[in-house]
Structures are given as structure tokens and as C-alpha cells.
């Protein structure tokens, strides 16, 4: 078996003058839940489209299960698009029936799988209802069931929980991870850093069509060596603020009204120094662990924050 489910080396893809992907290099291991994180327009969806063989790269080498992505490979790939892709006039059962026929699922298997997936995704009692009568969260669950219907080895999820409330989101991921058979690889393109932190084994930060960093969420956070300190102050003088900034060294100090946001490598060591610099001005201090979001901002930059880019 090849070592990587997806291997991309120096992929380039242009739309007219715009470079959607530029020297994009990435390896997705077999069986991983892999997150592609980046602002809108960073190239996530373009890359996912290349894997699904809906588009072809202009340059570079792309392999999916060791083969170039061609339409026949789609038989091993399930896709959940950012928007729903089910006919609102069809019933839930008919939607799965169509997916089964298109992906060559034998009739007997289709019946069994339909019943099982509708149970897992909580749609068993809506099987004969038209898709148009389902709630937004139910439709997303149906999309997941449809994408999994032919038991794909690779599942491509493009912003699968957009517009889904937190309760539905948890139910959806729980159901999805329940169906994760041995060896199924999941590629998740998302803007939701907390979601990626919770479900992904590995992530890649994407910006301007390039991979800026990749690793497990823990590795990326550990790489930060940074901790955030939130200090509420009263009567802090300009001179004291300057000394705090000097003490932070290559850390970062942002003053906002009566709150200081300080990022340093070792918060526990820094806090006593704060009290030494401004003993009477400090009202409260709290230390926060670095999140994947902190790691993201470090690699991608705050000016390219999620949601700040143009639509992809």
C-alpha cells in the first residue's frame, strides 16, 4: 500500500491571471482526519476540486492512492460540498438510491446501507420525506450519508458544518466519526479552527495557494512556545507600559482600554515581573493556553485572518 493517501508536489493552478495554487506541496497520510485551514480564497477548495478530478492542475504532481486523479478514481471518493447537493424535490430515500446507482452499489447492499446510514445520521423516520422538508442540519446529515453511501476510502468535506448549530455540529461529527471505517481518510477544508482542533489528526495552514505549515494540532501549538496573558489594569502610566513592553522582549503587548494582551514564551515567569513593574496598577491577571487559532495567526498572519480574504 502506498504511504500517503494524497501526495501533492509543487501543484500550480491558475484561473486567468489569478494563481489559486502556487507550488502547493502536501502529503495526507492514510486513515488521517486531515484539516486544510486557510482564509477564503487561499486555495483550499481548489485543491479539493483537483483531488476529486473535477479540475486538473496546470503543473506539479498530484497522486491520490498512488494514482493521478482521473474520473474513475471518484468511485473511491465521497464528497460533501459547501452547499447542499441534493434535489429538494426528491425524497431522502431517493437521494441515497441515486447515489447508490451512480456509484455502483449493489441493490441488496444499498438497502442495508441506506437503513444503517439513515439510522446513524438520525434520519430513519424521515426516509420518505422530501428533502425540501428537512431542516438545515438534517440536510447536512443527509449530505454526509450520501457521501458515505458507497463506503469511500477518501471523504472530502468542504466546510461541511457551515450554518449548522453547535448541537447539530456535534451530532454530525459524532455520527461521521462513528462510520469511520479502518483506513478511511478524511480531508476537511474549513474555516473553523475550533472544529479542526477538535476532530483533526493533522492540519495544514494554507495561504495564497501555498502550504505555510503542517503538523498535528498539538505540534503546531507546541511550536508556538507562546502563552497569552490578559491583564486588567487601572492607572497604568506610559512609563510603566514602556517597561512592560521592554520586559516582553520579542513577545507582543497590545494595550486596549484598561486591558493588556501580552504574548510571551513563559507566562508563569513573566507575571512576577509585571507586578514588579506596576505593583499598584494591576487588578487581575489570567493566563490562557495557546489555541490552534494562535498557531494559525502566527503562520498565516492576522491580516489574513479567516474570513478576511476574497471568496474562493
Amino acid at each position, binding site marked *: 500500500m502506498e504511504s500517503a493517501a494524497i501526495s501533492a508536489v509543487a501543484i500550480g493552478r491558475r484561473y486567468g491571471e489569478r494563481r489559486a495554487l502556487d507550488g502547493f506541496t502536501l502529503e495526507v497520510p492514510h486513515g488521517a482526519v486531515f484539516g486544510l485551514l486557510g482564509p477564503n480564497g487561499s486555495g483550499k477548495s481548489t485543491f479539493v*476540486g483537483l483531488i*476529486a478530478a473535477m479540475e486538473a492542475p496546470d503543473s506539479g504532481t498530484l497522486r491520490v492512492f498512488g494514482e493521478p486523479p482521473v*474520473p474513475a478514481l471518484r*468511485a473511491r471518493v465521497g464528497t460533501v460540498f459547501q452547499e447542499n447537493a*441534493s*434535489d429538494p424535490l426528491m425524497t431522502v430515500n431517493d437521494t441515497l438510491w441515486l447515489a447508490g*446507482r451512480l*456509484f*455502483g452499489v449493489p441493490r441488496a447492499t444499498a438497502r442495508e446501507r441506506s437503513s444503517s446510514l439513515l439510522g446513524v445520521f438520525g434520519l430513519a423516520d424521515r426516509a420518505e420525506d422530501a428533502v425540501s422538508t428537512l431542516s438545515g442540519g438534517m440536510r447536512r446529515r443527509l449530505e454526509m450519508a*450520501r457521501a458515505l453511501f458507497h463506503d469511500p476510502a477518501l471523504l472530502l468535506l468542504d466546510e461541511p458544518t457551515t450554518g449548522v448549530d453547535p448541537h447539530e455540529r456535534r451530532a454530525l461529527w459524532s455520527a461521521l466519526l462513528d462510520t469511520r471505517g479502518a483506513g478511511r481518510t478524511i480531508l476537511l477544508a474549513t474555516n473553523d479552527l475550533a472544529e479542526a482542533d477538535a476532530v483533526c489528526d493533522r492540519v495544514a495552514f494554507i495561504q495564497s495557494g501555498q502550504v505555510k505549515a503542517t503538523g498535528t494540532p498539538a505540534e503546531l501549538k507546541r511550536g508556538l512556545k507562546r502563552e497569552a496573558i490578559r491583564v486588567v489594569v487601572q492607572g497604568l502610566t506610559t512609563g510603566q507600559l514602556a517597561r512592560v513592553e521592554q520586559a516582553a522582549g520579542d513577545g507582543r503587548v497590545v494595550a486596549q482600554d484598561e486591558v493588556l494582551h501580552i504574548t510571551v514564551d513563559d507566562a508563569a515567569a513573566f507575571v512576577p515581573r509585571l507586578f514588579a513593574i506596576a505593583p499598584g496598577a494591576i487588578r487581575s491577571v489570567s493566563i490562557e493556553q495557546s489555541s490552534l487559532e494562535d498557531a494559525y495567526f502566527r503562520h498565516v498572519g492576522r491580516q489574513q485572518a479567516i474570513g478576511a480574504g476574497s471568496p474562493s
Partner: protein
Amino acid sequence: MSAASACAALFLRDLRGVVRARSQLYSSVFTPLLFLVFLGNGVSEGLAPSKLPAGSFTAYLVAGSVVMTSVFSSTFSSASFYRDRDSGVLRMVLSSPHSGRVILIGKSLAGVAIGTIQAAAVLLIAAPFVEFEWQYGLAAGLAAALLTVVLLNVLLAGLAQALASRIQTMQGFHLVMNLALFPLLFFSGAFFPVDELPAWLQAMAYANPLTYAVDALELAAYGANGDAFIGLGIDFGVLGTLAAAVYALGLARTPRLTWSGQ
């Protein structure tokens, strides 16, 4: 996971869609029938056309009404391409292992089935009210009429599906279909015989594929009294060749969508 199975699935899915949304079924059949009743009786009574091969204008209009039904049906059926694109279904189908061509063929075959059933329904509903002569006998006449309707619908549904996959908006599609098909309908012999027209209009009529469908239907249902008819052999030859050409050329360029549906 054969292409035929995928084609059949899309065929059945479109067919079910039309059966569920009954408005298309009714409008495609009843509009030509209303045409037949009001225009046919009005002209027959008011103008008493004596040169018509069918004897009355109502009977004469039957062939044209069947062709008109096929035109309407192919337009309506192919417009489902836009609904599929906008609802995301097309993207889902294109993410399957099958080529876009299989998808277009499956959808156009559904259009053929729907158009054929509707056109045959118009013919059968009109039958008790007009006197068909069935010059080749009832069975052979019906078979010839049915073959004509099938070939015509293969041609029109293929053409409409090919246009739908190339034209970006549904409004543009309807505009092109109306601009292209209505003049063809007028100069096909559907509403008036073409053999008495000026030479340039006759030339247009003979370059018009619908003329051959009208001719074949009239030959099948009535008698060949005079030299006005083209002949079943030529009619089937022209319709069959054009239908094959539409599938070979028109559906060769398949719809392309990016991942984001653009």
C-alpha cells in the same frame, strides 16, 4: 458501476421528477390540444380550407400539434438542467465516476420518454374526434407515427440538452429555444401546407427537420393523395440522421463545473 446503469438512474430520476411535478405533464399536452380545438375548429368553420389533405383543418392540425407537443416537452425537460445545476445536484452527479456525457444522455433520454408519451397522448386523445385514414393499416400507421415521434423527440431532447449545457442562464436558454424552434414550427407544415408557399419559403421548409416529422405523421395517419408528401423513407432518414448527429456532436462537449460550482 456501468455507464448504462448511471444513465438509467438519471433517466428514472428525471422521469419521477416530471411525474411528481404534474404541471409540466398537463401543460405540454393540453396546450396543443387547446390549439387543436380552437384554432382547428375556427379555421375549419370560418375559412373552409378545401386544399388540405386531411379534409378539415382540425384533422390537419393533429400532426402539427404532436410536433408542437414534442417541442414544448423537450424545452421543459431540458430546463431541468438549470434546476439541477442551481440545487447542486449536477455537481453531485459530476462527482461520480461517470463522464458528463453519460449524465447528458441519461437526462436527454428522460426527455425523449416524456416527450414521446406526451406526443402520443395528444395523438390518441385527438383520434376519436378526427377521421384518420391509416393508409398503411392501423397497426403499421401507429407504428410509423410512434417511430416518427420517437425520432423527433430524440432529436429535440438531444438538441435542447446540448443547448442547456452550453447556455449559462435559463432565461437565455428559453430565448434561444423560442427563437430557434418557433420559426421552425411555423415553416414545418404544422399549421399550413408548405407545397403552396413561395419557392424561398418552401426551401426553408425543406431545410427544416420538423417538416419531415409533420410529413411522416400525416402520411401515417392519413392518405398519400397527391405529390405533396415527401415520403416516409426520406422522413425517417432525415430525422434519424439528425438525431444521431445531435448525440454524436451536440452532446460531445460535456458540462464542466469547478468544485465550487462555477
